[in-house]
């Protein structure tokens, strides 16, 4: 019984470390990216990774509302990315 709990803790720590590596790689590209579309791509990817992070948090803590946070985050990230892409294309927001 004791050993089982330890294995779960190690696995949860590995999940956190993997997702943190993803987030920091995206942040590197946001800071370093030479042009605006690079940063837009990195922001989009960071939003999707954070949705997965919220799902893992909801699984580990057993709280239900983290999945609601993930849904809202996915929606807002999509809308923000579409707005940035239209802005890059040189059009205004209402055509």
């Amino acid at each position: 019984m004791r050993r089982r709990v330890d294995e779960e803790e190690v696995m949860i720590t590995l999940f956190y470390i993997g997702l943190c590596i993803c987030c920091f790689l995206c942040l590197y590209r946001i800071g370093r990216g030479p042009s605006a579309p690079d940063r837009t791509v990195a922001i989009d990817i960071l939003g999707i990774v954070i949705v997965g992070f919220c799902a893992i948090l909801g699984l580990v803590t057993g709280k239900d509302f983290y999945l609601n946070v993930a849904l809202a985050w996915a929606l807002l990230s999509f809308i923000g990315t579409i707005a940035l892409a239209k802005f890059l294309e040189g059009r205004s927001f209402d055509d």
Partner: protein
Amino acid sequence: MTDIIGHILIIVGILFDIFGCIGLVRFPDVYNRLQASTKCVTLGTILLLVGVALVSGVPATSTKAIICAVFILITSPTAAHAIAKGAYASGVELWENSVVDKYAEEIQK
């Protein structure tokens, strides 16, 4: 048994996420980065959400995770398409060793 399958799906999903983000850092061009990272991270996060839905036996959590996965499956390629079109329209050059540019030929017509 369901726990084991769910944990394997979560691990594979996180590996896909890491590979996609490494592609986001390592590739030389906006379009290469877009095509490397968007597909890998979309598949990885969908696998992760399906794994979360399998591991947590609660029906409300599983339903929300599946809804989230379907939403990401619909919206992520749309966002990638919009970003690629915006990047081309804002004048970002292709990588110098790129061999083909079909979209320019399409515009020329």
